[in-house]
């Protein structure tokens, strides 16, 4: 019983929040509001799903926000220039996302970097990514000419369920399969546990890490597609701040950097906790500034809870 609570604390917290929200606001437990929560959660969720891979392998990716910006302006720019051709726009965005991940991974491979290097390298590529987004868009918003089939990804729905949420669940299912049921996923989790041991057993540590960064980049690109399809516009600042939201969601869910406890279910729980808290605060008219402060406190609490669960004191 005790270990059940320990292992599923994020899900229990989520249930508690649902009850709390129902008690605090009459509008909380309506299908409209809950679908809204899902719609808002989906963009952060898709990014967080990809970031989970990086987190599980023990790394950090601070460039996700600018990857979203870059992919958003590129997708909208391509849509505008090709006369609303959907396919090229998606391909360009996905390639840009994968490219940013590849850049991170290759730089880290070149310097044979350890965990702390991922912070600095991704900070640098974040600057380059947002610089490219600004340069491509000239600092202005990009609008495509009129409506197109592209918008399905943002405002369409499947059997009454919003399309972004469907995409989020698809992404989560695929990544859960990759993480838990393939040798590649196993390797990712092992690298988080002990890099040296993995190297000794013949796993190409740096290549695996490069793939995790590419997965994170591609997920950021998918999020950018959903985001731009919803708003039908892209700004070079579209993705600012998303990296921190995704990081918070992943950690609140309880994914640990050593790969011991990981999975898309935890990430989903983290995303939902994060968005339900935001939703409850919005319903109760809490000031956005106070929400920023609370975000920081929630992250610290989640880190603390993760630490308690490890049950060991290092030095």
């Amino acid at each position: 019983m005790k270990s059940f609570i320990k292992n599923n604390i994020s899900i229990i917290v989520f249930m508690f929040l649902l009850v709390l929200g129902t008690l605090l606001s009459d509008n909380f437990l309506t299908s409209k509001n809950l679908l809204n929560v899902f719609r808002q959660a989906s963009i952060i969720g898709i990014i967080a799903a990809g970031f989970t891979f990086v987190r599980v392998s023990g790394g950090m990716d601070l460039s996700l926000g600018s990857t979203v910006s870059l992919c958003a302006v590129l997708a909208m720019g391509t849509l505008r220039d090709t006369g609303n051709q959907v396919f090229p726009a998606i391909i360009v965005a996905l390639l840009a996302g994968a490219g940013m991940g590849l850049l991170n991974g290759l730089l880290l491979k070149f310097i044979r970097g350890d965990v702390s290097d991922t912070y600095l390298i991704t900070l640098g590529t974040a600057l380059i990514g947002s610089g490219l987004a600004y340069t491509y868009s000239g600092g202005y918003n990009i609008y495509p000419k009129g409506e197109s089939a592209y918008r399905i990804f943002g405002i369409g729905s499947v059997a009454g369920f919003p399309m972004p949420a469907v995409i989020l669940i698809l992404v989560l299912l695929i990544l859960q399969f990759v993480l838990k049921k393939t040798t590649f996923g196993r390797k990712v989790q092992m690298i988080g546990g002990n890099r040296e041991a993995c190297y000794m057993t013949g796993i190409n540590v740096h290549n695996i890490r490069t793939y995790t960064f590419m997965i994170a980049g591609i997920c950021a690109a998918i999020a950018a597609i959903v985001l731009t399809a919803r708003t039908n516009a892209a700004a070079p600042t579209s993705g600012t701040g998303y990296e921190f939201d995704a990081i918070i969601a992943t950690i609140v869910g309880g994914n640990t950097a050593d790969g011991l406890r990981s999975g898309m279910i935890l990430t989903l729980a983290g995303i939902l906790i994060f968005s339900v808290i935001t939703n409850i605060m919005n319903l109760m008219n809490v000031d956005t500034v106070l929400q920023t402060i609370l975000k920081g406190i929630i992250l610290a609490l989640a880190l603390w809870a993760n630490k308690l669960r490890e049950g060991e004191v290092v030095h």
Partner: protein
Amino acid sequence: MAAVKQYGSRYKVWFMCIGISLIMTIISKTYMTGNNLRGILISTVPYGIAAIGTTFILISGEKDISMGSTIAFASVACALLLQRMSFGPAVLLTLIFCAMIGAVFGYLVAYLHLGSFMISISVMLSVRGLALFICNQNPVVVANPVVELLGNTRIGAVPFTFLVFVFLTFAAQWFLSRTQFGRNIYVMGCGNEVAESTGVNVRWHKLIVYIIGTVFAGIGGIALMVRMRSGSAVIADGAGITVIPMVIMGGTAFSGGKGGAVRTLSGVLLMNIIYNIMSLYNINMNVQSIVEGAIVLGIVVTNRYMENRNKKI
């Protein structure tokens, strides 16, 4: 010859500053003028002081990207306090607030053993929110004679605030290399277990290091307020991306245990010279960010490549 080589590698950033300045004197008419040089010196001050605080934290083996928020908080808090009291108490109170933030930060890292980088993200968000909260998201104008005086005073040709910065740098360097506490910080950077087994109270030292780091960021925020004659909660957004490269370029190791305040001074000067040259040649604002990122990556990659080239993993 060996001595020359040793001095060359030790002071290479200073030599780069001088070399770039000499080249720029030849190819640009405006670079070597009093106004431009004074501009460089003034622009180094706020982020430079914050960078010294960051040096402490990096040497102790921890990470921090929250200094931008602390700078903004200090500028707003000091500007608000100046409406109610005179300059001295306002600065003192601001720094006490910053020390309190640093104490919470340090407690989370040192006593609860939470990862310093993740905690710095959390502190960054919370303190930015706090700064926005106390000023109701409005900029605060400062009309104080002491602030005017501080901002305009020059001693000789050098701005007074820059002299304060240099003084703080040397004080920090003295503290780091001449006191036992400073020495212990280096030991912690090489490994907490090592420090613990040689009898260093790691938790207490880390807490103090974080308080020092945040107070320096606070002084940087006050310097920024003095320069702009106003406090704002949205300034210094992303200062972490600007400050950390300055520290690393000066020669402080991101992995800890190596570095110094005077080295950071050289890194701060070099980065500001580069920014100055970019604005002298009217490089597009949008492209500047790419150049900045390329510089950051260039520094980090060359540094780490040279360190790790014999490692397998």
